[in-house]
């Protein structure tokens, strides 16, 4: 029967369908694998975390002489929160009390510096820690340092001929904070719990700033001059335009990174969509070829059933042929994917991106799903044809 159905078919159509399916599967596997790996790499390196930027009003001569206000009003904050491209927006709260930062650790020489601390809500932090809370009576205040600060500190240590500090060492340092008000002062213990790349302030929990401001601060100095904004995926361009239109500014390097992250996110989404289309097209090409074969063989199918062949037997003949063909194409495309993967990984390494080289489990899922969907399509198309032809 295989001989009857397939021997006299146009081989060029078979070759075209096979090549189409092969290329489709190859692109699907390659894009799925690398999408997964690039996403994983992006997550690990914060390349694909949401864009979080700190904004403030542009400083102008007018603001220096007090003619314009650098403070954000309630209405301005509400307006920003309503924007479609803003996922979250909140104030950055600053301390209005004086803080002296002191490293009190036998590992390194004593180090003192006046600092000021700020706080943002936990959801804006790019640091994962369980210790980010403080309430009155707690012995230790958690601190998140800007990574730039650690680099500055290490520069200072280097110049002073003192060994530099690693991340792990810094996380173990004993730190004291001297909090000073107009009349009173108090020492509290502190501990660095992480480093931020996105915010350039020394951060403490909001409850600590509120407590400090109430106990030691100057209430008339409590102003909101900075906001932290998290933009929605792929909408950073709208936020950027809003900042321009409203005379707001952010750190330039932060803006560049945000633009890059936004572009990468859009690009990866685009590849995801193209991959999905490819699955559909790859299967469609071969299913279309089956439809063609079924139509060409309508007389043969009808006559065989008139001679007493069961429709199920005929369905099995088509299933066996196409599933076997698809399986061979699948194996070939997996083989070539292996080679392509090797060369693309070398390319990524040359570009400074070291991806995990284990095969993505997305690929196994895709193979099972594509094979299942294809087998079902072949069965369904053959069954429909047999049913249509049976009593004709």
């Amino acid at each position, binding site marked *: *029967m295989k*001989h*009857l159905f397939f*021997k*006299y078919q146009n081989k060029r159509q078979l070759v075209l369908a096979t090549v189409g399916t092969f290329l489709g599967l190859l692109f699907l596997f390659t894009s799925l694998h690398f999408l997964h790996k690039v996403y994983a790499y992006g997550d690990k390196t914060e390349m694909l975390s949401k864009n979080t930027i700190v904004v403030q009003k542009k400083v102008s001569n007018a603001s220096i002489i007090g003619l314009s206000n650098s403070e954000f009003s309630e209405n301005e904050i509400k307006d920003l929160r309503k924007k479609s491209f803003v996922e979250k927006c909140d104030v950055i709260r600053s301390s209005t009390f004086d803080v002296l930062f002191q490293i009190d650790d036998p590992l390194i020489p004593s180090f003192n510096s006046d600092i000021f601390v700020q706080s943002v809500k936990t959801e804006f932090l790019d640091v994962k820690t369980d210790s980010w809370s403080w309430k009155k009576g707690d012995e230790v205040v958690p601190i998140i340092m800007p990574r730039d600060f650690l680099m500055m500190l290490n520069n200072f240590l280097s110049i002073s001929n003192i060994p530099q500090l690693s991340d792990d060492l810094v996380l173990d340092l004993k730190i004291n904070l001297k909090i000073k008000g107009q009349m009173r002062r108090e020492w509290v213990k502190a501990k660095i719990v992480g480093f931020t790349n996105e915010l350039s302030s020394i951060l403490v929990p909001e409850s600590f700033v509120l407590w400090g401001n109430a106990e030691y601060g100057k209430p008339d100095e409590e102003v909101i001059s900075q906001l932290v904004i998290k933009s929605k995926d792929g909408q950073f361009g709208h936020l950027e335009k809003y900042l321009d239109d409203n005379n707001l500014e952010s750190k330039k390097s932060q803006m560049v990174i945000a633009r890059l992250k936004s572009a990468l996110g859009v690009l990866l989404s685009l590849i995801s969509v193209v991959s999905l289309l490819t699955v559909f097209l790859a299967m469609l090409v071969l299913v279309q070829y089956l439809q063609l074969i079924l139509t060409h063989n309508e007389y*043969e199918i009808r*006559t*065989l*059933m*008139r*001679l*007493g*062949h*069961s*429709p199920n037997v005929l369905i099995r003949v088509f299933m066996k042929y196409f599933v076997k063909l698809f399986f061979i194409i699948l194996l070939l495309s997996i083989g070539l994917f292996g080679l392509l993967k090797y060369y693309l990984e070398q390319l990524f390494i040359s570009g400074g991106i070291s991806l995990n080289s284990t095969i993505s489990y997305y690929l196994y899922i895709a193979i099972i799903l594509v094979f299942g969907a294809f087998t079902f399509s072949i069965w369904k198309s053959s069954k429909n044809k047999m049913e249509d032809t*049976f*009593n*004709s």
Partner: protein
Amino acid sequence: MHFKFQQLCPHVFQDQEIESEVWNKNFEISTNERVLVHAISGKGKTSFMYYLLGLRDDYTGEIYINNKALHSLSVEEWTEIRANKISCVFQDLQLFDKLSVKENFEILPSFASSYKLEDAKEMLDKLDIAEKWDSRVGTLSFGQKQRVALIRSLMKPFDVLVCDEPFSHLDSQNTQKCIGLMEKRLEEEQAGLILSALDSKQEFSGLKTIHL
């Protein structure tokens, strides 16, 4: 295999007054009965055969096979009937032109018990076309194809042999040889025959004629 016909009439004849022993009549064809359905062209011989085989349903009335209405038969029941109960020579033969004569026999779902592929070759020999065994059917004349189609129908197991003008392109000598083979197989299978022909003089034994 027993057939019962109740007020059977093709849609095309519904508004016509027709003289027929088949259309709009109640009658039966019993197991092992040999029937010649005789009519001139255009009276619906092929339609009648197709109705019997469940290949068309453009009619009113009802046909019963072994007391079961034709339209109520499932795909599995039809497959069993077409494979083992009814064997057929179609007027347009329904051979596979792309395949060889041998392959046209090999493609049958099953052979009659005690029959093998070599028996088909022997029958071809009796009908003087044994040398066509490996030829593609598409290269044969219509008369040769008619003999191949007849042998194909005889190679299957059957309770009734349905033949739609099976000798239309055969000379009287070949017709006689074919009738001889058919008689032998009908005897072996203890089967009935439903034969349609333009000519009412068919040399089968015990043939009852019904005028369409």
